[in-house]
């Protein structure tokens, strides 16, 4: 979607809501679970703790960034022509609202990221209307460019998964393993990475890497999620270090079947709730129904990016939303099973009219590393 089309949509939705302007805020965090609305609009990843874009009904757009010297980077990245680096952000933002003659109802996106001083200052000038949904609605439709980036992220994820599987060996510490796969993915072009993992005979959760050294007989689980230009992908894999018991194979197979069944139920227009309900049904039929809820599992998956399905939240069997074409969804029957501990198994897929397209080329299976 070109910037012009994006802006046309923004202005149309502003008019529909009777807004005189729109302020999109960012505290400089662009996280997989809380994507930056400002990054989506400006096509620039903010850095400092306070950044905002202001849009008027006539289509004027101004971007303000903090720290001031980041305005050079911002100018070279964003399509927005008018970029300022404010030395006193709150004062400058209020000044900008006045300069653009904005008053009355003004939509604010990402107001939850604002601190007391920012919010109270703008509230003195305009009538704040919280309208995150404006950008979420526009962002629902993935552009060709976004799909291109997602496919690149998929290749980076594959490189990361390969490094993860290759790096598992007796004696290596958890943080050393993560250092290697982070290196591989960054060198491949990821601009950031989200990694959780765990190792042990019986894992209970995934966490940040610790000092623990991998040992023979460990189950090593990892959630590998690189990001690039605001797009993300996630892969969950399990590696066994040694010769696994038939029980581990048998239990992991339940997760594989749950994943396959969920993916088979997904297509444009299908209820998003089927992802969780199908998965839980397979796991329930295998005798683990009572483990299909916290604290034995955290989430059956989630969407990625602004306006994606269940952004920042989790897929549940109660959700009303329907899957839409070209949504990117992480589907993961990650599950605690009493005989094996927590196991990781998950894919990211692109929703299509006929089903889903698996974005990763890394085989979905229980990986075994024998000494």
């Amino acid at each position, binding site marked *: 979607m070109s910037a012009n089309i994006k802006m046309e949509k923004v202005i149309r939705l502003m008019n529909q809501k009777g807004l005189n302007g729109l302020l999109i805020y960012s505290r400089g965090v662009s996280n997989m679970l809380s994507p930056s609305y400002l990054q989506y609009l400006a096509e620039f990843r903010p850095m400092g703790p306070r950044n905002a874009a202001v849009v008027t009904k006539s289509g004027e757009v101004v971007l303000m960034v903090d720290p001031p010297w980041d305005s050079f980077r911002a100018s070279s990245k964003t399509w927005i022509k008018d970029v300022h680096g404010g030395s006193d952000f709150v004062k400058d933002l209020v000044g900008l609202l006045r300069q653009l003659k904005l008053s009355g109802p003004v939509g604010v996106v990402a107001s939850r990221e*604002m601190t007391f001083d920012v919010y109270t200052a703008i509230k003195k000038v305009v009538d704040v209307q919280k309208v995150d949904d404006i950008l979420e609605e526009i962002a629902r439709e993935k552009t060709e460019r976004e799909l291109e980036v997602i496919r690149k992220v998929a290749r980076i994820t594959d490189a990361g998964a390969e490094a993860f599987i290759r790096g598992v060996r007796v004696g290596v510490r958890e943080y050393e393993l993560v250092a290697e796969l*982070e290196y591989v993915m960054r060198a491949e072009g990821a601009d950031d990475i989200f990694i959780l993992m765990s190792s042990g005979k019986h894992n209970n959760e995934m966490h940040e890497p610790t000092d623990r050294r991998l040992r023979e007989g460990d189950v090593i689980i990892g959630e590998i999620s690189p990001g690039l230009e605001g797009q993300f992908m996630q892969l969950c894999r399990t590696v066994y270090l040694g010769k696994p018991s038939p029980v581990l194979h048998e239990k992991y197979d339940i997760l594989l079947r749950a994943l396959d069944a969920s993916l088979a139920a997904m297509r444009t227009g299908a209820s998003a709730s089927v992802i969780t309900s199908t998965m839980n049904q397979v796991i329930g039929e295998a005798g683990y129904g009572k483990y299909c809820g916290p604290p034995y599992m955290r989430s059956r998956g989630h969407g990625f990016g602004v306006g994606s399905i269940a952004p920042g939240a989790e897929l549940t069997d109660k959700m009303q939303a329907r899957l839409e074409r070209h949504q990117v969804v992480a589907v993961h029957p990650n599950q605690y099973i009493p005989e094996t501990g927590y196991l990781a198994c998950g894919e990211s897929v692109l929703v299509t009219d006929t089903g889903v397209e698996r974005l990763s080329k890394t085989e979905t299976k229980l990986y075994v590393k024998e000494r």
Partner: protein
Amino acid sequence: METMQPLLKSGRTAWDRINMPVEEFHERVKKIRKEMKKEKIDLLLLYGNGFNEYGNYCYLSNHMIRLPQGGMVVVPTKGEVTMMFEGAARGLPSVRKMTWIDDVRPSGDVAAEFVKYLTEKKICPSVIGFAGLRRLMPYHQYQFLLDSLAGCKVIDSDHLLNEFRMVKSRTEVLQIRRTARIVAGVFDFVANTPFTEPTENVLEAAARREARLEGAEDFRMMILKPSEKNGAFRPTEERPIKSGDWMIIYVAVEFERYWAEAVRTFAVKESAFAEIQHETVKTLYENILQGMKIRKRMSQFYKETRAKIAKAKFEEISDYGMGQGIGLSVKELPLIAKEDRTILADGMCLSLRLGIRGKELGTIMIGDTIYLSKAGPEVVTR
């Protein structure tokens, strides 16, 4: 210096109780309670969030939130200290490994959890001190707290933590030294490693791996290429590094919650990075450093430094500041700035950055983490 915030702090997560003994936290609680008594504060809230601003919360808890969420420590005048963090209950076992506090409460919203805490403990404080809340807490949570505490007197207690955090204990200085060694190691690695046709991203990835393998919990790197139009510090990109490039590299590392940072200027020759070692600049830097003395006001040090740069007939690069305190935050008080009247004290850890331009010199930046004691300033990142 400001840097890009990560998606998640994905480096080594550990609490080495030899490096940071639990007694250190008991001592901090004692000091804080003494001040609370002086200021007649019944309950003190220390708030921190995100990747850069966990300092106040971590100062007492040793815990850091690894996602862009909030955490709060509640200190009553006596009895148990309580810690609240925004995250799922299933994360509790990991969180407990990082803190000495027994009463740890996961929550979706620390402000709401605090109100629950007051009801549960049947506490009705008359004076509540807020440290970090007004500046950092999201507006909706802050307003909820103010509304819920309508009968209490809320006072700003930022100064209380600022003062304690500015002067480091011996244990803290040792932590900063450990971190500083990683920073120095990264620069040694850059200077001593041949890179074949590297891109900026590959250089960053390799430097990051070095730091991670030494235990870095967080790693930040920015570069500045003076030859670029409007050249300013920025994250690395998928761009080639060419022989002849002149590159200023900023690195900040966090190890077991404590930060250190440094800046170096390199010239790229074929596949090697050679640090620019200009005698005049080295002498100026050393001269500036020797001016950093205890009992001097920051504003005075700032003024003297600017005068020294001018006397050397260099143009000063002031965009990134001359430096600041460093510890649990990469950027904390005091600031090396005109307005900062703080008196330099024994035990402070500071970041010093010298950025200059000269006709024949080009653009050079040099900077280090400094430990200031009665013996004078000591560079810990070399």
